[in-house]
């Protein structure tokens, strides 16, 4: 019987030991997701509840809110996004530094919710790419936390080079977002 020894991880592909590096940085990113709360309406109040003592988003290392897009990793879109606000949201997404994730909280942000009206954008995924959708009108804080944990999963398992891949660039281009390349 011949056993074929598998090559050690990281021996080929993106570079020596790149995968372990990927993992370490993925872990770091996952546990230090600084959110930008783009809170427009009801869900924003539930987000405040999530931030405060009973639910405490800080446990995941996510309590450092910053309202400047440059410093955030996670864009949390909470509440109705109207057509008037759409360009603003897109600009905020544009201004964020890579890697960035988007969490769409609440029915309104995901699909427009009960507001199927002339003034409301029917889901923010029309203008920016979304990573995780949290349903609910508004979602309970537990749900928001679960959404965050799903983002953590994504961040953990993301390759360091994903953001440079053609696939990613194409995806951004499909949203008419200027790419850095």
């Amino acid at each position: 019987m011949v056993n074929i020894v598998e090559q050690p991880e990281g021996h080929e592909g993106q570079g020596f030991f790149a995968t372990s590096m990927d993992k370490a940085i993925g872990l770091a990113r996952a546990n230090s997701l600084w959110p930008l709360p783009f809170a427009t309406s009801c869900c924003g109040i539930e987000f405040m509840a999530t931030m405060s003592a009973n639910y405490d988003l800080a446990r995941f290392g996510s309590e450092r809110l910053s309202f400047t897009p440059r410093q955030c990793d996670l864009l949390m879109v909470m509440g109705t996004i109207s057509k008037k606000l759409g360009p603003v949201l897109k600009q905020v997404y544009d201004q964020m530094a890579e890697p960035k994730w988007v969490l769409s909280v609440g029915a309104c942000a995901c699909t427009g919710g009960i507001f199927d009206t002339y003034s409301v954008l029917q889901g923010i995924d029309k203008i920016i790419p979304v990573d995780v959708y949290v349903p609910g009108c508004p979602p309970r804080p537990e749900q928001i936390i679960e959404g965050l944990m799903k983002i953590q999963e994504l961040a953990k398992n993301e390759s360091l080079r994903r953001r440079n891949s053609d696939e990613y660039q194409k995806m951004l281009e499909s949203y008419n977002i200027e790419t850095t390349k």
Partner: protein
Amino acid sequence: MDSAMMLEKLVLILVILAITLVVALYLTFGERKIAAFFQDRLGPNRVGPFGLFQPFADGGKLIFKEEIIPKNAEKWLFILGPGVAMIVATITSAVIPWGTSIELFGRTIALQVADINIGVLYIVGIVSVGVYGIMIGGWASNNKYSLYGAIRASAQMISYELSMGLSLIAVIMMSGTLSLNEIVSQQPSWHWNILYQPLGFLLFFVSALAECNRAPFDMAECETELIGGYHTEYSSMKLGFYLFSEYINMFISCAVISCIYLGGYNFPGMNYITDPTWLGLTQVAVMFAKILFLVFVFMWIRWTLPRFRYDQLMRLGWKSMIPLALVNLVITGLVIGIMKF
């Protein structure tokens, strides 16, 4: 200066630098935990035991984040800003006496990098350079909010440095020296300067809060008004440097306060320890205990008090602190005169 001495100083510098960085790293974590404690929360607890590796997660993330330099920013100054802030923050520690000395490999090693005879002046000078980091960064960002932060920070620094300096002069008059080491060694056991200069201590403490841009004087950052203040446009490790330098500044300020007013490494009953190495190490521990206590007070204030308005801050600086510091100076002078008489 022989080569062994050079080596010794180099090692000491590296050790102090490393300790400063690690302490600053953990101060960010401590701040979050203490904030959580004051707010009935848990604080970060997912990374490692009790969340102890949280700072490394933050650091790792920041290093691998995209650098953005805004199109209209002044590129070189934009990069220079955080660098200045970081360098200035780290070099202040050179004149802090961490202990008297320890004996290692048959040599007596002084626990101070440089015992320059104008240590106090050096600190005051370096701290004033510190504001350049904020000013340059805020100005170069080409963002109005950053500019507001920078302007507020520089005006605040100028006015609070005056009262800081004036309250320092009273101490210098008492001790008759500008060397930090000398000032510390003049406060043996429990004869700390805070007992002779309570008002001076208070003024210096408040000024230190203002110099570090800590609440209630965090005008430069002021996240509910100016979004991020001077570092609004910064991302990645440049932001990391700014945040980091803030914590190093806090650490060093507390070290200076404990040197000047709380007797530095002195503690009651230290004459009973005879072994010089043990004495040195205990002194370092005592020094750190004092510093960490002061840091805790800094954070306590941060999470309890609201912040001042810009003009109120200036009014406090110019109309209350400076006159009080002058009064303190006059009283000190009179007392010294009477004692000599």
